[in-house]
């Protein structure tokens, strides 16, 4: 470009891609959120100059949520600081979590200055752009156009991502890199994440290396360190995280990861110290404060745990990320401080606040109550809580997640119960029969309850139960009895609903059935359901990504719409069913 222009005539600016399709900003729905009336008016005036007619305004996060719940906006201009109540980031997170915005919605976060969160926050919680005040009309328009162009580049990838077809999304990344050099780094970052989600850490690492060959991006360094940590190379990972921190003291994620590395190395004290620093630097993260509380409680720093849990509850008040953990943790703290009354008060508010969204809250509250009494030496009340827990378990076939089950079994053994904790532990084994670390942990709980030998026998029986279920299904499949195999696996899932190998095999057999006998909408929906369930239990599995991709390929194509990319070899490489364990 070699242009001379009289400023003020507008429209001279370089458009990088060289092909802006004019966007009709006039016809869009806008929401302006700012607690300062002057800024709201200014932004409204600027939008009107773009021709906008539909502009709603909110002066607080709560008001914005109300409007977002009723109206689908095309563009949201939201200030980061909104006074008391939710801040702009919390509004964004909640709007996304509750699906109140479309993927096409442009979200511009406005702030007076750059914040640490704006640079170091997790990519999936970022707005489309940050604008620093003052915002002139010209700036607003150029940024709107830019975000819109960028969204076009990512549209198909985002869609495949939302459908959890991670391998296709990754191939689309490659295609876009070839066409849009300017977005290469962002596309590589996304591709690496997709590879991680597909259980392909080695390929994710290659992508990060490719980024680092261009520039020292710290997120790429952290990405590699995380892969090495997952690979058990804790010391190497620790050094890399520390290197990133030395380079940029504000890369908060590196602190969180460094704390995890220490934890993996069994160095809880160091882990706690690092988290404490991260929480001082960037205190408004619910998960970070919760993590700090948990580890501080574990190493007996009751005061620190209390502070972290209280902060966690305070910032969680307006956040969609809040969970009951901080309440339960704080109750444990109160138990340690011999204040069971305060503990009970906290447990009651947890019960009240989380009843709607956490179906297992009654159980978890009761467990914590039992632990509080147990730890403060009130054995009579602890036993009573134990008896109530047994009743709760008897009343429902649903079981909480594995850590809660183990905690519960330990508590129940501790207060003298036997049948209920044994049943719980067998349930855990049946659903995780191929997880040797967990088997060890369960054996330890049996040992501590002085049931070592009996426990060993129980573990083996439960393992066999799960293995037999799986092998019978595999046998049917191998002998070509596909219909029967599908039915058998359906029944097996009823008996062991959370066993990932059984779930994967069930989905694989359904896929095989459709590959040989044709697409079936019901079967396809069932396979998706099974896969989504297993992905929630244990995200980032290779078989998940492969089966998702195969399912998508089985989908009949709508008329006139071709397959937009070639099926590569990896799509069919994963067609195997587990055999006998």
């Amino acid at each position, binding site marked *: 470009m070699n242009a001379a222009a009289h400023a*003020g005539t507008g429209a001279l600016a370089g458009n990088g891609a060289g092909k802006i399709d004019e966007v009709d900003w006039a016809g869009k729905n806008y929401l302006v959120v700012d607690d300062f009336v002057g800024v709201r008016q*200014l932004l409204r005036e600027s939008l009107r100059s773009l021709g906008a007619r539909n502009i709603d305004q909110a002066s607080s996060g709560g008001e914005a949520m109300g409007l977002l719940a009723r109206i689908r906006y095309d563009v949201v201009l939201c200030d980061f600081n909104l006074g008391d109540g939710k801040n702009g980031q919390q509004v964004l997170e909640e709007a996304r979590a509750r699906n109140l915005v479309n993927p096409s919605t442009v979200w511009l976060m406005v702030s007076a*200055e750059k914040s*640490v969160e704006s640079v170091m926050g997790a990519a999936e919680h970022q707005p489309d752009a940050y604008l620093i*005040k003052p915002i002139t009309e*010209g700036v607003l328009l150029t940024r709107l156009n*830019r975000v819109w162009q960028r969204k076009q580049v990512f549209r198909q990838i985002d869609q495949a991502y939302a459908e959890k077809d991670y391998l296709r999304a990754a191939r689309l990344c490659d295609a876009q890199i070839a066409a849009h050099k*300017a977005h290469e*780094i962002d596309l590589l970052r996304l591709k690496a994440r997709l590879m991680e989600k597909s259980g392909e850490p080695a390929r994710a690492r290659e992508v990060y290396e490719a980024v680092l060959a261009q520039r020292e991006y710290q997120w790429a360094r952290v990405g590699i360190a995380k892969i090495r940590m997952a690979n058990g190379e804790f010391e190497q990972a620790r050094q890399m995280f520390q290197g990133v921190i030395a380079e940029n003291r504000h890369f908060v994620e590196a602190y969180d990861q460094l704390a995890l590395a220490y934890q993996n190395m069994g160095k809880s004290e160091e882990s706690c110290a690092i988290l404490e620093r991260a929480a001082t630097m960037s205190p408004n993260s619910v998960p970070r404060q919760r993590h700090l509380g948990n580890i501080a409680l574990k190493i007996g720093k009751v005061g620190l745990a209390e502070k972290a849990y209280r902060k966690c509850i305070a910032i969680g008040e307006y956040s969609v990320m809040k969970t009951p953990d901080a309440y339960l943790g704080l109750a444990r703290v109160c138990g340690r401080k011999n204040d069971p009354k305060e503990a009970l008060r906290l447990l009651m508010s947890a019960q009240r606040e989380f009843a709607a969204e956490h179906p297992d809250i009654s159980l978890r509250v009761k467990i914590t109550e039992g632990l509080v009494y147990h730890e403060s030496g009130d054995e009579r009340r602890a036993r009573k809580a134990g008896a109530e827990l047994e009743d709760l378990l008897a009343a429902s076939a649903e079981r909480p997640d594995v850590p809660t089950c183990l905690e519960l079994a330990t508590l129940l053994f501790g207060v003298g119960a036997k049948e209920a904790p044994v049943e719980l532990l067998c349930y855990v084994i049946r659903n995780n029969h191929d997880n040797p670390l967990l088997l060890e942990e369960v054996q330890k709980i049996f040992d501590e309850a002085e049931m070592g030998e009996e426990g060993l026998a129980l573990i083996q029986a439960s393992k066999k139960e799960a293995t037999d279920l799986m092998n019978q299904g595999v046998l049917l499949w191998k002998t070509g009895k596909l219909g029967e195999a599908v039915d058998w696996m359906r029944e097996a899932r009823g008996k062991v609903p959370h066993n990932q190998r059984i779930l994967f095999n069930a989905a694989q057999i359904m896929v095989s059935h459709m590959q040989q006998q044709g697409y079936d909408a019901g079967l396809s929906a069932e396979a998706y359901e099974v896969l989504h369930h297993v992905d929630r239990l244990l995200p980032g599995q290779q078989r998940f990504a492969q089966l998702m991709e195969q399912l998508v390929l089985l989908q009949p194509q709508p008329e006139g719409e071709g397959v937009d990319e070639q099926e590569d070899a990896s799509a069919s490489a994963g067609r195997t069913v587990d055999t006998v364990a």
Partner: protein
Amino acid sequence: MDEPSSAPEHELFLFLASTAHDMKNSISVLSGTLERLLGGAAPSTNPDYPQLAHMLYQTRRLNDNLMQLLALYKKVGKPEYPFDLRPLEMGHLVEQVVAVAQVLLGSRGIRLELDVDPALVWHVDEDLVVGVLSHAINNAIHYTCDTVRLAIREVDGWLELRVEDNGPGYPPALLKAGASAAREIGGVNFMTNSTGLGLYFSSEVAKMHRHRGRHGALRLENGGHYGGGCFVLSLP
């Protein structure tokens, strides 16, 4: 690794940040309103036009100074400025700079000449570099005759961003101050030199951009395309 900042210092920082936030709101409204007034008026029909244009110039200076002070406070004090390197097309960078400057340029009747490859991609902290270039253009507007030139190109593995004008050029004292600002902090006299803050800030921004052992630099010179002042930012 350093110790985390002490509590009172942190509180002072939060207080400053919230005060600055408030002031930014006022400046936003002020400069937005001025832009609107200028947009609706013409020099021929409105006798106050030159004053309005001058008010916009002063408001921009106020804003730039505030932004620079805040960013420097963050860098010098704790916590540090969250430096944010990203790949950016130069076309988009120029778009931002033009969007910030165009009303002021128009109100002064000054031509902005661009010499940029819009597809060139470089890794920069966009907010900081836009801030530096806008400030340099503001400054050039004040001293130029009738033209400001923004030229961006790659030179031997460096990104060179030049803001040139056709005014009388920088006085020798400033050229010297610029040279020392590029070297270290001590050379700039903030008390007597009104341009000191901007230069110091710009040279800090340059230095924050690092790549494989090299870091950015700022220099002032006279000459360039039009023989006037040249503000030259080089980034690795």
